[in-house]
């Protein structure tokens, strides 16, 4: 139970970072931290005590139970979605830096006029 609560705490740290940080790069970092906590939460759900990794290797004992492969397939897809989103965010952050000369949201707001 404690693992799920700490995972949710990591999620909230990321959310706190997005809400309070002023710097674009810090916002992207806290966004990726939130993503990592959701991925961990999904894999934690699928874990079975004493289960094996879901790969059928040659020398497996007879009645072995496997860890749940479905959350792993979900998280594998979600990790690459996370890569796509952070690449998009960083591309726009560079572009904003070149246009406004700063990563700070407040300065961008008052430069926008």
């Amino acid at each position: 139970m404690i693992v799920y609560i700490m995972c949710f705490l990591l999620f909230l740290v990321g959310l706190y970072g997005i809400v309070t940080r002023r710097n674009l790069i810090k916002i992207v970092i806290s966004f990726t931290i939130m993503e990592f906590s959701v991925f961990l939460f999904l894999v934690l759900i699928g874990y079975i005590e004493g289960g094996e990794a879901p790969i059928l290797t040659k020398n497996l004992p007879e009645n072995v139970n496997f860890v749940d492969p479905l959350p792993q397939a979900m998280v594998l897809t979600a990790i690459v979605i996370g890569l796509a989103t952070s690449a998009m965010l960083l591309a726009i952050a560079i572009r904003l830096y070149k246009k406004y000369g700063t990563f700070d949201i407040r300065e961008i707001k008052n430069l926008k006029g």
Partner: protein
Amino acid sequence: MEGLTPIVKKVAQLMSGIIFVYGIYIVVHGHLTPGGAFAGGIILAGAFILLILAFGSEVIRLKKEETGSSITESLSILLTLILAIGGLFIGTKVFFNNYLPKGEVGELISAGLIPIYNILIGIEVAAAIITIFLALVIFKEEEEER
């Protein structure tokens, strides 16, 4: 973009060959060992990025490579879609149906369409990451010129 010192260039040259072969291994054995299209594709892209960082090259050549990788990317995902649509006409007439023979579980040629999907999407993922990286590099180069 100017390259780095000759030592780094030599090490990068040696390393990227090994990384490339390792990426191909991960993609092709996706249905037997852990890894698969996504992991292997990104490792392939990593090998290529290592070369770009170490050797650097002028913007024109980078632009040509970017259009090349963008076309490879669209071609390989188009082939995957055609294979998936093929399922509509063969086997049980359903989208995304694995109609090739399944073969024996542990073998290399075993899981019907899965290895082919793995290879195609591995190429697509590698080309996508290379296009993204080249777009970033070209943008920084052109921004400096302006």
